[in-house]
């Protein structure tokens, strides 16, 4: 007798496998809801996992770029503040030079003016060597030492580098860190290199009796002070433009951050509404399967025979 039968073992195996499948699906959906993540392992969605990795990498680098931009903004702001103070200082020096050029101002008056100008020159020197919040020189270019040095004879020279270097703040975008002191304090006067320090110190020396005609010296110094003011004004404009650029980059970074978060959520986050609906569906199916199993498995001939 080789009739084909409906084996009891086969029925139980089949029912158990079906229920295990449903239970497995429910467990997976539950994990998705609990963790908020669509997949736990890369192999559940290799392409999605690769996208998530790339988004996470971009996010990590963008966070650093954001920090870099904020810091660059601070440094540029500090430099701009210093340059504004330098401009005010040079304007005061110009007023003093105009007074000194006035013949009505006597020798004593010129002495007083020379004294104040000497103070201003000191302040200018210290402002030129000022540092950022973290102690880095603002105008030394890529050097971490002083920007300007004064030798024994009182001559001030720029000892920083002519470039200030750039900081990357976005993919493909690098903004200059600041302005080297050579572009803020030195200029060409009538075809020869000069600096704000040389102009002020020269005027002080002339007013203190170094020049036979202090009035003429003061008059000619006005030209140098104007050139220094022009240079400082240009520096303010450049720094202002860069600060605006940084702000623009920061705004873009904020926008990109939102776009990235949306994309990350689309790729890797659980759609809660969908997941809960699926969970409910699977639960209903499991309950139905279980009660059907209980009913069918009790339908044995042995139960009918008493």
């Amino acid at each position, binding site marked *: 007798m080789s009739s084909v039968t409906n084996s009891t073992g086969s029925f139980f195996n089949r029912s158990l496998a079906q229920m295990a499948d449903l239970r497995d699906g429910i467990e997976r959906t539950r994990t998705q809801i609990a963790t908020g993540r669509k997949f736990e392992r890369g*192999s559940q969605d290799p392409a999605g996992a690769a996208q998530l990795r790339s988004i996470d990498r971009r996010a990590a680098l963008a966070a*650093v770029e954001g920090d870099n931009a904020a810091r660059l903004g601070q440094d540029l702001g500090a430099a701009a503040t210093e340059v504004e103070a330098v401009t005010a200082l040079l304007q005061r020096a110009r007023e003093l030079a105009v007074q000194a050029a006035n013949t009505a101002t006597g020798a004593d008056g010129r002495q007083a003016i020379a004294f104040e100008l000497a103070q201003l020159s000191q302040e200018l020197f210290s402002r030129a060597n000022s540092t950022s919040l*973290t102690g880095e020189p603002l105008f030394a270019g890529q*050097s971490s030492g002083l920007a300007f040095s004064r030798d024994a004879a009182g001559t001030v020279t720029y000892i920083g580098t002519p470039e200030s270097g750039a900081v990357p703040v976005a993919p493909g975008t690098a903004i200059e860190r600041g302005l080297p002191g050579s572009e803020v304090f030195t200029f060409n006067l009538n075809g020869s290199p000069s600096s704000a320090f040389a102009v002020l110190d020269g005027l002080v020396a002339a007013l203190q009796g170094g020049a036979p005609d202090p009035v003429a010296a003061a008059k000619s110094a006005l030209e140098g002070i104007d050139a220094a003011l022009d240079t400082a004004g240009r520096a303010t404009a450049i720094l202002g433009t860069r600060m605006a650029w940084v702000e623009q980059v920061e705004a873009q970074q904020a926008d990109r951050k939102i776009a990235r978060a949306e994309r990350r959520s689309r790729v890797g986050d659980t759609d809660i509404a969908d997941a809960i609906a699926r969970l409910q569906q699977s639960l209903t199916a499991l309950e139905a399967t279980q009660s059907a199993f209980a009913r069918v498995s009790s339908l044995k001939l042995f139960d009918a025979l008493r």
Partner: protein
Amino acid sequence: MPTAIFTIGRSGLTASRRSLELTAQNIANATNPDYTRRTLTQGELVMTGSIGTNAADSLGGVRPGAIKRAESALVQRQARDASSAVAAAEAEFFALREAESALETSGLFTGIVGFEAALNKLQSNPTEPALRVTAVEAGRKLASNFRVANGTLANARSLVQGEASAEVLTVNELAKELAEINADLVGAREGTAGRAALLDARDKALRGLAEQFGIQPTINANGTADVMLAGTPPVALVTGATAQAVSVTFAANGTANFAVGATGFVPAGGAMAGRASALTDMANVQAGLDGIAVSVVAIANAAQAAGVGLDGTPGQPLFAGTGAADITVVLASANGLATAPAGAPAGSTNTANLAALITALSAPTGPASGADSLLIGLSSRVSALETRSEGLAIVSASAEAELLRETGVDLDTEAANLIRMQQAFEANSRVIQVAAELFDTILGLR
């Protein structure tokens, strides 16, 4: 011949009682997965004697015949082949999933990104000690990520190797068992319960072997089974009453080599083939991981050599190591990070050399994309294996169901048999009663 009725009734009683016993045996083994449904054959017993042309029949009742096992060679083979295939896919899937988790949880990719990010941050102020230390520490973390990945991968590998070694012992036990069954089968008489039990044990051993290795069994006329292991080349495992020993050894890169006796072979199916394939994949992943570690060492050290540190002296190597196992940070001080190009003075904030390092690290051929493609390659493989083993599991389950349908016990049928045999038993008792009454009637004649 009134006594003939007694004999007929008694033979009927014997036959139905033995059938009842067999039904009870079937019911008792309803949940035994290795049990094959048995039936009892019966034959009519007629004696014919003839003298000259006078023939006379004498009815003798029924003769209980042989115990038949539901024959199932074809479905047995289907179920074996299907379970071989699913075992191969599942073994490889589980092994590689371990490797995948090992790489993913080691944080290798985030380590590389962290190092890149720390270097990027250093660009904002290359002379700040805190940022320098952070960059070197990010490098140290990356090195430790490599070592963790290496360790967890080695762990996953040794789990698979341990499993293979342990299962080889099971295979040898099964082969020995099968050889003993073969020896016993030669002597077992056809149609006995003992022979049916031996055949059940034979099929069980074959199924056990098929899970571990793809097998090509030959069932001989006397019921014994000779087993060849499928592979290159195919090798004989069990021939008659002799079984060869299977052994496994592991190469330096972790890949497995199998041998039967002294003959090496590459298994072509079963869990062992899956494990062998997983070990080969793991060796490739290990090579990829080592390659990325070596490229990180090379890129960082080349950049160091091309630049100068904070003190203006040429940069010294940042990493040392020949692979993921031994990569370490060897730079003594964070000031030694060569952020500035060669020729820059001490304390320079020039970041040209640092920028070159960052570019090399994030290049399409750099370690970040290397780690990404290693991960995506592995997880795609695992994903494909999962799909494959799910599909094969369905095939295997239906082959198993088919086998159970052919050979399993159906309780409804057995319950019906129980009633049928009980009625037959009662009817035969009644025949004896009638015979007795007939006898009494004859004896009571006056």
